């Protein structure tokens, strides 16, 4: 039985549905992420799980128990807030001990557990400091320690890394993964940063305008997005409009507007006539002056229209004969060279038949 069941939950503000008939099952021990742009409803959903907001429809069931009418302090669910919400008038020890005090744990044992937890988040010795004496990263760890100390069933994290700079983010992300593995508590993580979601999660729920677009493992979300929104939201993606012309067995022929006919793998058993788009990741598009012929690939010629130098890779925007543009990604791994091609160069691009994923509308 899943640890957390969200059944058809809806939350409306006036006529606007912030969360619209969302159903999710989250398993114990998972690192589950709610991913989406601002306003998609992920934070509202999180607050309902925590108990700060009440669904207008549907129910939230934790460990088999319906959470309706149960206030936040009675749920065994704790939150790491985006602003950390450390009590400024209490020092680190008192902050971390707070949940234990609330649970009426024997005072003699509190001190020891606080020390252990501080060790877990690598903040030993910081006990007597006050929040305004801590760095951003330290504050974040206190917030996590405080939320974990009495081993809640569920830990909710509301964009906890949003305020950290890029370098710090990376190391904290690794720590979070290790922590979650070690303690084994189920995490429900909210973020708008898709690369963060891909890095941290066991499973991701991509949300948009109050609805869940797709729930899957990161690799599937990335490789097999279900619709345009997911494909576009996750990293870079070419979305080439087209229509299925013919199907035979595993393969199908798709007529891409402005490009021509290409061959793709028929993953979902689609029939001819379906309109949609071919989702093609730029790193799967080979680019070169003279590519070797490949029977398993779709090949086209074009001219480099523009390029984006990103340091480790370069994205080439190639304009094909009919005016359509496709992005191809090339790592800048050859020593000494920053660019392989210049704007205006004549090039060939190709992608394997199984490189793209057809999304029907």
């Amino acid at each position, binding site marked *: 039985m899943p640890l957390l069941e969200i059944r058809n939950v809806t939350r409306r503000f006036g006529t606007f549905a912030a969360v619209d008939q969302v159903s999710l099952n989250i398993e114990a021990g998972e690192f589950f992420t709610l991913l989406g742009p601002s306003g998609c409803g992920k934070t509202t959903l999180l607050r309902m799980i*925590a*108990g*700060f907001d009440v669904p207008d429809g549907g129910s939230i069931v934790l460990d088999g128990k319906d959470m309706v009418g149960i206030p936040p302090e009675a749920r065994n669910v*704790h*939150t790491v807030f985006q*602003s950390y919400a450390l009590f400024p008038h209490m020092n680190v020890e008192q902050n971390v001990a*707070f949940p234990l005090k*609330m*649970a009426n744990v024997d005072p003699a044992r509190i001190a020891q557990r606080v020390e252990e937890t501080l060790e877990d988040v690598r903040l030993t010795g910081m006990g007597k400091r006050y929040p305004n004496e801590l760095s951003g990263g330290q504050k974040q760890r206190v917030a996590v320690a*405080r939320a974990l100390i009495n081993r809640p069933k569920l830990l909710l994290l509301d964009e906890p890394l949003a305020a950290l700079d890029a370098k710090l983010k990376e190391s904290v992300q690794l720590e979070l993964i290790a922590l979650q593995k070690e303690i084994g508590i189920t995490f429900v993580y909210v973020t708008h940063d898709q690369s963060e979601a891909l890095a941290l999660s066991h499973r991701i729920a991509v949300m948009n305008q109050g609805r869940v677009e797709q729930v899957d493992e990161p690799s599937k979300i990335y490789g097999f997005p279900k619709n345009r929104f997911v494909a576009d939201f996750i990293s870079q993606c070419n979305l080439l409009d087209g229509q299925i012309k013919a199907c035979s067995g595993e393969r199908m022929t798709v007529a891409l507007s402005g490009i021509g006919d290409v061959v793709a793998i028929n993953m979902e058993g689609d029939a001819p006539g379906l309109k949609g788009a071919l989702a093609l990741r730029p790193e799967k598009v080979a680019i070169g002056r003279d590519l070797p012929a490949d029977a398993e690939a779709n090949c086209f010629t074009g001219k480099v229209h523009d390029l984006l130098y990103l340091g480790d890779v370069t994205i080439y925007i190639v304009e094909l004969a009919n005016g359509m543009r496709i992005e191809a990604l090339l790592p800048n791994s050859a020593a000494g060279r920053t660019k392989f091609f210049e704007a205006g160069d004549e090039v060939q691009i190709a992608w394997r038949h199984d490189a793209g994923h057809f999304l029907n509308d």
Partner: protein
Amino acid sequence: MNKRVVLLWSAAILAYAFLYAPLAIVVVYSFNDSRLNAEWVGFTLSWYQKLFHNEKMLHAAWNSLLIGITASAVSTILGTMAGYAMYRFRTRLLPVLILAPIAIPEILMGVSLLIFFVLLNISLGMVSIVLSHIAFCIGFVAIVVRSRLAGMDESLTEAARDLGATPWTAFRLVTLPLIMPGVVAGALMAFTLSIDDFVITFFTAGVGSTTLPLQIYTMVKIAVTPEVNAVSTLLMTLTLALILIASRLAPGSLRTQ
């Protein structure tokens, strides 16, 4: 450009002088060895000495103190509740009743309370004064507490509840300590307002009781001696000290309008 700045500064300095000169004059004359508030004769502390032997004045000061402390205590508790309620819940009647005593001319409140007490056969005296003072002090405390709450990080109270605290415990352990400076500032302001109040006290005091401001009024109308200057100076000093403390505790709350 410079000329205009100079002009602005002079106008402003004149305005400040206008604000403080009269008060300074009162203070200066309190040390003047002369019955008249006219020319400077010499320095003396005799007026202050006379003050401390003035039975009526001491009695009035004592009354003012008692009233001030009682009114301040009660209105701080009620005002904090009101301020919290206005912040946390949607209240419609409460804000009106909070703001009205502050917005309308004081005489209206004084007069209506007079009728009220007489009709209810409540004798006019210390009790009626205290009850009246509480009525107009609640609003000030409520406004100060509310603005202090508005400036507080709401996620802190949420975090407390998230970690297992009941609403009352969250208020007690997290919210209250954080707004305490505002509460204390409100209490000090209420005390000052009570000590200084004239109009409402004038109508609800009846014959028997007197407060410091009422005593000053009698002295001003009937027999002006520099004792008035002396008691005024002392009162001003007290008020100044209290308000400076309050402004340290809750900066910005003094601009309650």
